[in-house]
């Protein structure tokens, strides 16, 4: 398969403007600014079938089209580089090795919604990535791709790199905007949606790094070429970050619809040390775990993974072999969400901590009869009852671990010890 997103990865000095341009970089940007009207660009992206790669999978062109054309307010485009989903490290690879692809995508998206100020919100811990992006923005500005009167078209565009400061929730788009406004990263109630009431109450589009990085290729080769790849509803290619008990961890680019089992076994080399697969999280820590028998017929696209009872999410694939204690895994994930809950909504703020405490006591041999149903009850009370999807992201995996490995949880409670780990 031809690589779109990883096409520059592994090339020497791929982060520099010279190398990026030698491989055709910024030609799409020039074509957009010189030859395309914003409405044509939006139609092209709609026709490509590109969907948001941050986790939700919302159609990108449609998201842009919700921005009002006649608003007197400034419009903002925000690149979401706040990659924090457990098991996900694809955006970091692009940031460090192909920053100009992200910048070019950001420029194209900003033109689509006629924004003259774009932000790249990068997670605070990625200090090396921020330096690389900052240098790349400076290079692109010096070359005239960013700034005033770009390519003599009269179109102005400024790009501001903004560092987060350590908070998972800021990857959620309305939390990101609260953070960018200088406050706590608190999600906002939708509607109104950012497309009409975003940054400082102005029309705003937030797109993920991987989504934006796909745009230069789509413009270069055309929407039809992109839409020719993938499945009926999941077009193009997607990046998967593979970690845990797997022979060849790393970032893979896969055509949508590729068989999951084949991917794990052939592309990633399968579970190492002659051990068997026990479970796999397909889309980052927020998504329900799948048992080996559940992935037999699953393909890597939004619809197929959803039909199997989980979600494609960020494409963060976490593999667990037969030596993994699922109580411990569930406890680890629950602790993550208890730590990261922003605290606005009571069901999430309280519920995440209770789930963590209960999993922790089961893990440490202090579980009580009724604990499992209690977690399921708490999880059910969080689901759908919070401002943002974080609540669901905490509730879904907790319930899935119990439902799919219930005997293991019950054994921990009955025997007051771990019944799995051999160490």
């Amino acid at each position, binding site marked *: 398969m031809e690589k779109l997103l990883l096409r520059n990865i592994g090339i020497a000095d791929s982060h520099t403007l010279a190398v990026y341009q030698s491989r055709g970089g910024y030609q799409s940007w020039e074509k957009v600014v010189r030859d395309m009207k914003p409405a044509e660009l939006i139609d092209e992206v709609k026709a490509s079938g590109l969907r948001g790669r941050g986790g939700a999978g919302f159609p990108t062109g449609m998201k842009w089209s919700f921005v009002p054309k006649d608003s007197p307010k400034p419009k903002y485009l925000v690149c979401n580089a706040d990659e*924090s989903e457990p*098991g*996900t490290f694809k955006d970091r690879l692009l940031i460090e090795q192909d920053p100009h692809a992200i910048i070019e995508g950001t420029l194209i998206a900003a033109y689509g919604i006629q924004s003259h100020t774009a932000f790249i919100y990068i997670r605070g811990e990625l200090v090396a990535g921020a330096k690389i992006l900052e240098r790349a923005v400076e290079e692109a500005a010096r070359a005239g791709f960013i700034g005033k009167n770009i390519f003599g078209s009269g179109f102005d565009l400024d790009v501001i790199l903004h560092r*987060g*400061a*350590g908070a998972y929730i800021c990857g959620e788009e309305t939390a990101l905007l609260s953070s960018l*406004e200088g406050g706590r990263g608190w999600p906002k109630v939708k509607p109104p949606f950012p497309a009409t009431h975003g940054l400082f109450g102005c029309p705003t589009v937030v797109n993920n790094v991987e989504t934006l990085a796909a745009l230069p290729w789509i413009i270069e080769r055309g929407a039809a070429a992109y839409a020719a790849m993938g499945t009926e509803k999941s077009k193009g290619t997607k990046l998967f970050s593979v*970690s845990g008990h797997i022979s060849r961890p790393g970032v893979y680019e896969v055509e949508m619809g590729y068989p999951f089992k084949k991917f794990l076994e052939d592309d990633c080399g399968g579970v190492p040390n002659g051990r068997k697969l026990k479970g796999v999280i397909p889309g980052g820590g927020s998504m329900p775990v799948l048992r080996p028998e559940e992935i037999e017929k699953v393909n890597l696209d939004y619809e197929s993974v959803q039909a199997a009872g989980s979600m494609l999410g960020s494409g963060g694939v976490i593999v667990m072999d037969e030596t993994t204690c699922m109580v411990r*895994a569930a406890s680890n994930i629950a602790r*993550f969400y208890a730590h990261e809950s922003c605290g606005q909504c009571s069901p999430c703020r309280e519920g995440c901590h209770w789930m963590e405490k209960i999993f922790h006591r089961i893990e440490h041999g202090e579980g009580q009869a009724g604990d499992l149903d209690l977690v399921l009850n708490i999880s059910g009370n969080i689901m759908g009852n919070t401002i943002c999807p974080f609540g669901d992201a905490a509730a879904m995996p907790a319930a899935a671990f119990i439902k799919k490995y219930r005997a293991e949880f019950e054994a921990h409670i009955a025997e007051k010890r771990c019944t799995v780990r051999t160490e």
Partner: protein
Amino acid sequence: MALEFSPETLKRFEATVARYPKKEAAMLPVLYLAQREFGHLGPEAIAYVARLMGQSPARVHGVVSFYTMYNVKPIGRHHVQVCRTLSCALGGAEKITAIITKKIGIEPGQTTADGRFTLSEVECLASCGTAPMMQVNDDYYENLTEEKVTAILDGLK
């Protein structure tokens, strides 16, 4: 004496604020400037930033306490942060923390008496394919082993 920015940092502060459509949006970068200048963001630093930004100290403290990368207390010269989230946990993060604890004599959440190290356990740092990993100040160290961790710590003076 009350805390204040050096003239050089004050210039950077003004340039930073000027980059944003609204002054309040510069809060996070300004807090980074203050943390670099003052070492940590105690009550005096927060009061100073509040004055500069035209906001109440309570609001600034609310922002500072929300994010993990702002330190309200002094920390060691080398902030050793071991990722403990699932992929790193599957890759042996706990052993890495135990090795560090044994070597430098502090538990997560503590700072060595000489101010050389602070040890923390942190959540996913987007380095899951190269687990286990840790971040020391700005730098990532990946695919950690006992030998590697020992050598890294020995190199941090």
